[in-house]
């Protein structure tokens, strides 16, 4: 059976910690950093559970600051 694997790259310095990508992700991959902040003081988003990513790009679609780039591959 083939399997879809996804991964996201998030520009942490551009992120404003709005949480919209976290809510949009269907597989609960993303979270905001609970403590750490970027150089503008925002709790930036990161892939807390990267193995669950299916590369659907829902997070990238809703991100107002275009911080997220998405990768997808199918393994047989």
């Amino acid at each position, binding site marked *: 059976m083939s399997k879809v*694997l*996804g*991964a996201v790259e998030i520009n942490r310095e551009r992120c*404003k910690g709005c949480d919209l990508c976290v809510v949009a992700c269907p597989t609960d991959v993303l979270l905001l950093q609970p403590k750490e902040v970027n150089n503008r003081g925002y709790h930036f988003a990161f892939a807390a559970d990267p193995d669950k990513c299916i590369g659907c790009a829902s997070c990238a679609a809703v991100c107002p*600051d275009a911080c997220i780039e998405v990768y997808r591959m199918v393994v047989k």
Partner: protein
Amino acid sequence: MTPQDIIRPENKVYARPALLNENNMHYCPGCSHGVVHKLIAEVLEEMGLADKAIGIAPVGCAVFAYNYVDIDWIEAAHGRAPAVATAVKRLDPTRMVFTYQGDGDLAAIGTCEAIHAANRAENIAIIFINNGIYGMTGGQMAPTTLEGMKTSTTPYGRRVELNGYPLAITNLMTQLDGTCYVTRQAVHTPAAVRKTKAAIRQAFSNSMDGSGTSVVEVVSTCASGWKMTPVQANKWMEENMFAKYPLGDLKNTVQQ
């Protein structure tokens, strides 16, 4: 398989549009303006219109749109974007000309310009960001503010007997013979973002084809003005704004 094995150029399925430059946008976290800027950049890139497009920026939070999307822009006085767009498009009809306006800009001070440009069937696209409030100046009531909605100038909520009714100006514009495409969309979910992108594409191609005026309203959030988190603002918009401003195409006379 680690993310590093997947993050390879050949696997890239979504990239930040190249027409968005490196500047960090000044918008508040979660602001709908950012999503719509991104979609405009994506559509212009995909349609190969980067060198043909001229955007007319408003007064409002999006006054600095020209700092982010790398195309030619003109900054118009408050509400006058459709008048400026008229001149630009008439002087060079080979250009794809669009305005980008908030609801304070389009539905208050600029009502006259918007209605008359649309009634003249100017071959422009109007991107209309309706967040129901004056975002830039501190969250005052706009004509589009919902009944009962609290703003800095209606601290107890908008009262119809004092402030009149919320204005669905996009519906008015469907009545004008000059409009060819009028639609109302949003950008709160991935599916809604895809629909808005398709609507912007349609509006831009109408401008190139000389089909008349297109209006793409995007019902939007202003989390700061509404005094909510971005996630709460999206939910509030779904529960409240969509009743007065339901999503979908309002008019389309263009054969697709």
